[in-house]
Each structure stands twice: as structure tokens, then as C-alpha cells.
């Protein structure tokens, strides 16, 4: 009996299904779990549309930066307010810099968006890079034996 179950479980295509079912059950139990938002947030979100047409960096203008570790705050301020020359060039010409394609994650706005979170921006772009490497390798070698 147990042997039959093990044999049934040994199919590779079964694991994503089992995993998804487990996840669904856990999420159903999660409905009974109290989920709330603490008001003392380290990364506060500005009110919707409160920055539109007032600052070119809307909706990502983080004028006040709170640091997790206050002893590193002086260095953090120098980096967080930094914009690349290209970013400054675009920012001076349009009020919609924050919503243009160049400021999406991976674009040039990343400096102000993510630098307080340090390594995150490096990791996100390297995940994307690795995914592209795998895809291009498979694509270029698809006819090779």
C-alpha cells in the first residue's frame, strides 16, 4: 500500500500540483488568521495622487527617508537623493518622469526607489539577467545535439 503511494508520488509532474493544493489549503486556513496593518511603517506610502503634477518624481518622491539603523542615516541621505545625469536631464523637462518607461524597476529611477534597500536592486536585476541567459542559451542551442 505504502509502496503504491510512493510510486504514485514519484512522478515529477505531480509535485507542482501537490504543492499548489497544499498552498490552497494553507491559504484557506489563513482566512481565519488575523491580518492587519501596523501604522508604524518604516516605508510609508504617500496618499494616492497626492504627488501628481507637483513633483516630477511622482509617485515615487520620498522626500523624508527613515532608516532602519539610524547610525547609517548620514551616508544613506547622500545616496538616496542621488540622481544620475540622465535622470536629472529628463526630470527637468517633464513632470511625468516617475511614470515613464525609463523609471520602471530596472530603469534609471532605481537609485531613488531602491537604494535605501541596498542589495535589492542588484539582486532583482541579476535574477532578470540569469533568466535571460538561460533563455538565450536554450534558444541559440536549440538545434544543436
Amino acid at each position, binding site marked *: 500500500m505504502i509502496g503504491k503511494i510512493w510510486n504514485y508520488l*514519484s512522478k*515529477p*509532474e505531480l*509535485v*507542482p500540483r501537490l*504543492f*499548489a493544493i*497544499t*498552498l490552497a489549503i*494553507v491559504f484557506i*486556513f*489563513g482566512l481565519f*488568521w488575523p*491580518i*492587519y*496593518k*501596523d*501604522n*508604524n*511603517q*518604516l*516605508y510609508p506610502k504617500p496618499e494616492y495622487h497626492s504627488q501628481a503634477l507637483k513633483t516630477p518624481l511622482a509617485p515615487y518622491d520620498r522626500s523624508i527617508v527613515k*532608516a*532602519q*539603523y539610524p547610525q*547609517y542615516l548620514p551616508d*544613506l541621505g547622500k*545616496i538616496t537623493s542621488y540622481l544620475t545625469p540622465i535622470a536629472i536631464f529628463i526630470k527637468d523637462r517633464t513632470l511625468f518622469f516617475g511614470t515613464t518607461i525609463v523609471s520602471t524597476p530596472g530603469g534609471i529611477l532605481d537609485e531613488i526607489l531602491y*537604494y*535605501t*534597500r*541596498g*542589495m*535589492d536592486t542588484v*539582486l*532583482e536585476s*541579476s*535574477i532578470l539577467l*540569469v*533568466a535571460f*541567459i*538561460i533563455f538565450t*542559451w*536554450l534558444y541559440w*542551442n536549440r538545434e*544543436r*545535439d
Partner: protein
Amino acid sequence: MIDGGIFGIVPFGDIIFKYSMFSTIGFVIAITFTILVYLTKPEKQLEAQKFGEDKLIDIPLHELKNRRYMAIVCGIATAGAMLTQDIFDFALFLTLVGIANIGIVSAVKREHVLNASFQYGLTSIIATLPLFGASALILAKTGTLSILELHHLNKNLLFEKILYGLGMAGETGVAPYYAAKAEMFRAPGSPYILMIHLSSLLLIVRTVEILLTI
């Protein structure tokens, strides 16, 4: 803190890399194995044929380069995941390890290997939902992502922890299953497969340490 004394920290903004007793050991192991993987040559295999001569299977250079690169990325990501003191950063490291694992497996041109790596890819795509969802829930509930801060807060995070553990299990925890299932041990080019196991092992231990700390 259950991870022993602190040797030093490397601050990157709000994310801190901490060298403690536990994380330094994991870091050194991951880096050592990465260097070993870089230096060793993959083994060749003699495959017995039913009719005619036995044939020696060699790994072509282009495949070797890709798999070695992916193994090195996997090793470096594992080493980074040992040190980081941030929930979201650790989730990103897990995702990077997962995708590098798929890269190691997917370069082998055999049908059952590619099938297994496709299924592993599906599992790790599903697993990003609980992983990042749990990070978001923890951020909403406590207002911070730093493990050092969460240690002092003493909030009840049981459901989030279960979700986080599930995400880790789907992202790297099931990788050895697929590596074994696809008979990767018998596929040529063994040292790169060891990276999947090593990263999975180290990351499971590290996740348990994080979940016990916060």
C-alpha cells in the same frame, strides 16, 4: 539570537550583511564549493551499449560553460543568502538560487531531464507567491523587514512563517527531488549537480534559523 557571536557587519543601506558564527560557516562552505566547482573538470562517462562498442560520453564545451556559470551563480547566491539580515533580501536570494538551479538542469539535452526541469520551474514559479506574500504580510504587520529588528518585536507571525517556509520549500527545497528524479547523478557532468544539493541544504538550515529568530 541563536546564531552565535557576531564577528562583524557590512551595511548596505537598510540591509545588513552579518558575519556571525553560524552565517560565517555557511558562507565559507558555499564559497569553498563554488571554487571547487570552478576548478574541477566534469567527469566523463562510459555508457554500455547493447550492440556494438561502448561509447564515451563527453560534455561539449558550450554546455559545460553554461552549466558551470549557473553553478557559480548558484554558489554566490547561496553565500549571500547566508549573510543577509533582511526578509525580502533573503527571498530574492532564494529566487536567484532557484532560477540558477533551473539553469544548471536545463542545459542537458535529454527529454526526461528537460521534463523534470520544466516541472521544477513550475513549482518555483508557484512558490514565489507564498514567499513574497509572506514578506509583504510581515512588513504590513510589523512595519519592518530587518531580522535584527523583528527579533525584538515579539509579534505573533505563525501564519507568515508557515507561508515563508512553504515558499522556501517550493523554491529550493524540492530541487534535490528533481535532480534525483531526472537521474542527474547518472547524467554526465556531475560536480555541477552537487551545487543544487548544497544550496538546498544550506538554505533550508538558514531558513530554519531565520524563522526561529524572528
